[in-house]
C-alpha cells in the first residue's frame, strides 16, 4: 500500500483523476496583505492541505488591536457547474453545523463565505503545537500522565461529536497532526471534516490517513468506532514514537506499546490495545467507555490527581492585551453598562463616566457627592444609577446632564431595576423604593430589617431582593409582602430567576434555590465561604463566585457540583456568560475567561489590582473596571 498523507502539498484528490502533480501551481495561494471580504487581512500561510491553504489573518473589524483568526481556504475544482454549486451548498451546510458545536476542544467558527471558486472558513486561531510536532520535538518518550490527560480530552470531544443529534458526527481523521496542544496544554481538534465535501472524484469515501484508520474505514464505513481505533493509533504513536505511516497497516498488535516503551503502565497499554482491535465489536463500544477506562487507569496510576492539581501550566496573561484602557481618579468597584456604543461606569472618585466603547475615549462625566458602586441602567436615553450620596440620579445618556434625583435616607449601593414604568432599588435606609420612572415620585417604600445592597429582581409580577440582615423578600407590585425567607447571614447577592425558581446566595456560605411563588428553599448548595457574588445561569448550570476564591458551577436540578475553578483570592465579581465562555473577576487582580461547561481556563488577564465588579460582554468584547482605577476592554 502506498503511503500518502493528505496534509502534504501533493494531494491525491487534486484533479479528480489522473496525476496530482503540477496542479499546485494552478491554485494560487493568497499573498500576505490581501484582504478578504473587506475584513480579513492575510498575514501568512500556516498550512497547506489537499483542498487549499490555511492562513493566519487579522480581523480588521477590530482596527485598534490585533485580533488573529485562522482562515481555511477550500478550492472548488469540480468542472461541472451543477456539482460546483452542490459543493458550495454542502460547504455552507457543514459550516452552519460546525458553528453550532460548542466544545472546548473544537475551535470556534466565526464566519464563512464563498467567492469565485473558493470557499473560506474563518475560525479561532489556536496558538500551540500539533501533537505530531510535540512527539517529534520531545527528548525521549512523552510522560504517561500527560498522554492520559490528552487522551481523556480527546475521548471527551469524540463523545460530544458522536452524541450529536440528529446524526452523529464522525471525525474520520484522528491523527497527531490534527490534534493541536494549545498554550494551556489542552487539546484542540483541527482540520474538521468540512474539507471532505470538496473531495470529489475519488471512488468511495475512503477518507483518513493510512496508518491511523481502522480496516473498516477502507471499505467506506466511517463509524464512531473508527474514530475510537484512530484515537488508539494516535495514542500508540504518542507513547511509542513509532509513526504508523511508516509501518505495514494494521500491525499494532505486533508492536505492543510496552515492548517499545516499558515506562507505560500495563493498564494504559490494555486500553490502547482494546481501542486498536481489528474487529470493531471487540473495541470499546463508544468513546465514553474508552474515557471511563482511561479515568480508571488515571486513578490507578495516580495520574488523575496530578492532572487535577496541576491546574495546567499557567498561561501568563496568555498574550491578552487590552483593546483600550481608561484611567479614572479612584477605584472602580462596580459594573459597567453598555448602550448604543457608549460604556457607562461609576467610580469611587464620585463620577459616572461615559466612554466610547470602541476606543475608550472620554465622552463626559457626571459628578455626585459620593462613591458609585451601583451599576448604571440605561432606559429611554437616560442613565439611572445610585450613589453613596444617598440619591438615585437620572441623567441624559448622551449629554450627561441632570434630569432629576430622588433622595433616600441612606447610602445607596443597590443598582436600579426598571419594570412597568417603575424603578426599584434598595438603600441603606433599609427600604426598597419604587419610584415612577417619568415623574421621579415615590410610588411606595417597603421597610425591611436591614440595609439593602442587592439589586432587586422583577419577575412573575413580583419584586425579589435580599438585605444585609439575611432576609429575602417576595413583594407584589403594590409593595405588599407575599413571602419572606431567612438566611443566616446577609444577602448582598442579587437573585436571578428561571421561571418558577430563584437562585441567590448569602454570606452564610450557601447558594439557594427558592420557589418563586412561596419562598421555599428547594435546595441549598454549600460554598467554601460566604459570597456577595450574584449567580448566572445557562442551560442547566448555575455559576457563582465565593470568598473562598472559587468559581462554582452547580447543576440547577440536582444541586450537584459540576466543576469548580480556583482563583488566588476572593471572588466578589459575578459571572457573565457569553457564547461558550464565562467571564469573572477576582480580588487576585485577574479577569478570567473559562469554558463554561468544564471550567477550563481559556485565558486570564492581569489588572494591577483587585477586580470586584462584574464584566459585561458585547460584540466579542469584555468590559470591566478594576480597583487599579482603570476601565479595560478585552477581546472575548
Amino acid at each position, binding site marked *: 500500500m502506498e503511503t500518502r498523507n493528505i496534509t502534504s502539498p501533493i494531494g491525491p484528490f487534486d484533479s479528480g483523476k489522473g496525476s496530482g502533480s503540477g496542479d499546485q501551481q494552478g491554485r494560487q495561494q493568497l499573498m500576505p496583505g490581501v484582504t478578504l471580504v473587506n475584513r480579513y487581512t492575510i498575514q501568512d500561510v500556516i498550512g497547506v492541505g489537499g483542498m487549499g491553504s490555511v492562513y493566519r489573518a487579522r480581523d480588521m473589524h477590530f482596527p485598534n488591536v490585533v485580533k488573529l483568526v485562522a482562515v481555511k481556504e477550500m478550492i472548488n475544482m469540480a468542472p461541472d457547474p451543477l456539482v460546483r454549486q452542490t459543493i458550495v451548498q454542502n460547504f455552507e451546510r457543514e459550516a452552519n453545523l460546525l458553528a453550532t458545536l460548542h466544545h472546548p476542544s473544537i475551535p470556534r467558527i466565526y464566519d464563512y463565505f464563498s467567492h469565485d471558486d473558493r470557499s473560506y472558513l474563518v475560525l479561532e486561531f489556536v496558538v500551540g503545537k500539533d501533537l505530531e510536532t510535540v512527539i517529534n520535538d520531545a527528548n525521549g518518550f512523552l510522560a504517561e500522565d500527560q498522554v492520559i490527560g490528552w487522551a481523556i480530552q480527546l475521548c471527551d470531544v469524540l463523545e460530544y461529536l458522536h452524541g450529536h443529534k440528529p446524526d452523529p458526527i464522525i471525525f474520520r481523521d484522528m491523527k497527531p497532526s490534527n490534534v493541536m496542544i494549545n498554550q494551556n496544554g489542552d487539546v484542540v481538534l483541527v482540520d474538521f471534516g468540512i474539507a471532505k465535501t470538496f473531495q470529489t472524484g475519488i471512488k468511495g469515501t475512503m477518507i483518513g490517513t493510512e496508518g491511523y484508520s481502522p480496516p473498516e474505514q477502507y471499505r467506506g464505513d466511517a463509524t464512531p468506532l473508527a474514530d475510537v481505533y484512530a484515537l488508539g493509533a494516535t495514542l500508540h504513536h504518542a507513547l511509542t514514537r513509532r509513526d504508523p505511516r511508516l509501518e505495514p497497516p494494521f500491525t499494532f498488535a505486533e508492536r505492543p506499546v510496552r515492548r517499545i516503551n516499558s515506562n507505560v503502565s500495563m493498564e494504559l497499554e490494555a486500553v490502547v490495545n482494546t481501542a486498536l482491535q481489528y474487529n470493531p465489536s471487540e473495541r470499546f463500544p463508544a468513546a465514553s467507555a474508552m474515557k471511563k477506562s482511561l479515568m480508571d487507569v488515571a486513578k490507578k496510576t495516580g495520574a488523575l490527581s496530578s492532572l487535577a492539581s496541576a491546574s495546567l501550566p499557567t498561561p501568563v496573561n496568555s498574550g491578552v492585551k487590552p483593546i483600550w484602557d481608561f484611567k479614572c481618579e479612584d477605584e472602580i468597584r462596580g459594573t459597567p453598562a453598555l448602550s448604543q456604543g457608549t460604556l457607562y461606569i461609576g467610580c469611587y472618585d464620585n463620577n459616572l463616566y461615559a466612554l466610547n466603547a470602541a476606543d475608550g475615549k472620554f465622552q463626559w462625566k457626571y459628578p455626585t457627592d459620593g462613591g458609585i458602586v451601583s451599576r448604571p441602567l440605561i432606559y429611554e436615553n437616560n442613565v439611572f444609577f445610585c450613589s453613596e450620596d444617598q440619591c438615585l440620579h437620572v441623567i441624559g445618556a448622551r449629554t450627561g446632564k441632570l434630569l432629576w434625583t430622588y433622595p433616600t435616607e441612606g447610602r445607596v449601593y443597590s443598582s436600579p431595576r426598571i419594570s412597568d414604568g417603575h424603578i426599584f432599588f434598595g438603600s441603606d435606609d433599609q427600604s426598597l423604593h419604587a419610584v415612577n420612572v417619568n415623574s421621579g415620585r415615590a410610588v411606595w417604600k417597603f421597610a425591611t430589617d436591614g440595609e439593602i445592597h442587592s439589586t432587586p429582581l422583577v419577575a412573575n409580577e413580583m419584586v425579589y431582593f435580599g438585605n444585609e440582615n439575611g432576609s429575602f423578600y417576595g413583594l407584589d407590585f403594590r409593595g405588599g409582602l407575599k413571602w419572606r425567607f431567612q438566611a443566616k447571614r446577609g444577602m448582598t447577592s442579587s437573585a436571578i430567576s428561571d421561571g*418558577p*425558581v430563584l437562585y441567590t446566595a448569602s454570606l452564610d456560605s450557601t447558594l439557594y434555590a427558592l*420557589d418563586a411563588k412561596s419562598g421555599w428553599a*428547594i435546595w*441549598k448548595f454549600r460554598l467554601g465561604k460566604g459570597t456577595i457574588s450574584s449567580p448566572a445561569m445557562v442551560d442547566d448550570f448555575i455559576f457563582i463566585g465565593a470568598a473562598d476564591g472559587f468559581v462554582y458551577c452547580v447543576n440547577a436540578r*440536582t444541586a450537584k457540583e459540576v466543576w469548580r475553578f480556583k482563583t488566588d483570592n476572593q471572588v466578589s465579581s459575578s459571572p457573565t456568560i457569553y457564547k461558550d465562555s464565562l467571564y469573572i473577576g477576582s480580588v487576585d487582580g485577574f479577569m478570567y475567561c473559562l469554558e463554561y461547561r468544564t471550567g477550563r481556563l481559556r485565558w486570564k488577564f492581569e489588572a494591577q489590582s483587585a477586580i470586584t465588579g462584574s464584566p459585561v460582554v458585547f460584540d466579542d468584547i469584555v468590559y470591566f473596571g478594576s480597583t487599579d482605577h482603570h476601565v479595560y476592554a478585552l477581546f472575548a
Partner: protein
Amino acid sequence: MADFFRKLFGSKEETTKPKELVDAATTAPLTDQQLHSIISGQAPKYEIKQLIASVGQSVGKQRDHNEDSVLALTTTISGSVESVPFGLYVVADGMGGHQFGEVASNAAIRIVGGKIVEKFHSYLYKIPTQSLQESLQEVMEESIMEAHQYIQREAPGSGTTITAALVLGQQVTIGHVGDSRAYAVFPDGRMDPLTRDHSLVKRLEELGHLSKDEVETFPHRNVLIRALGQGETLEADIFTVPFPQSGYLMICSDGLWGVVNEKDVVRIIGESPNLHRACQAMVEAANAAGGPDNITVILAQIIG
C-alpha cells in the same frame, strides 16, 4: 401601563370580581363534568390553583400477592393567602423473590411519607405557619435514607424501589431509586421520563452494549443495580423540576410501564374524562396485556 396601575393600586371593582369566582370554585366536591369543563375550559383567570390526583392499583394476573405500595396525599389550603398546592406521591415496588418484598415497599412509603408530612406539619397545620430549615431536597434525601436504614435493620435481605414526588407550589422535588418511573405527560402526546432507571438493562444500554431492540428482549430486564435496603451506601437521585404545566405528573411501577407502551398511556389519559378513570383504564390495559406483575399508577394535575 394601565394594567400596571391596576396591579399597583387595585380598585374595588377589580377585587370584588375574583372573590365571587373563588367562592364558586370551592363548592366541592366537583362533579366529573365540572372538573372536565374546568380542565378543558377557558382556564378562568381567578380560579384557585389546586392539585388533584388519583391512584390505580392491581395485583395483576399472575402474582398472588401485592408487593407494590402507594401513597398519595393532596392538600389544598386556601383563604386570604394565596393557595400553595402541596402533594406527596410515592410508589414503591418491593423486590420479587425476597421474602420481605412487601414489607420493604410498605415501610418505604410510610417512612418517607411520615417523615415528610412531619416536616411540613408546622407549615400546613400550625398558626402562624413556619417554613422549615431544610431545603426540599434535603427533606427528601433524609427521609429516603431513613427508610433505607429501617429496611436494612428490620427486613434484611429485602429491597424496594422508590419514586417519590413532593409537589409544593409549581415545583416537583423527586427522590428516586430503582426502576419505578416518574413521567411528565403533556396533552400534545409528549411523555418525558423524569427519572432514570437504576437497572442493569438501562446501564448496559447507556454503555452502548445493548441496542434498542436488544433492550426489549433482554432476559434480565428486572435486575436492579440500586434499591432501597440494599448495600451499605445508597445514592438516591434527588432533583427538582417544574410541575408539568397543563399536563400531568405520572408515577408508576414497572407493572405498568413494562407492559403498556407510551402511546397507549398517552391515548388512555387523553380519552379519559378524569384522573381516576384514566388510572383505572391504565390498570385494565396492563391486565389485558397479561398482567404479569403488580401494577401501580398515580396521576396528578394542577388545575385552575
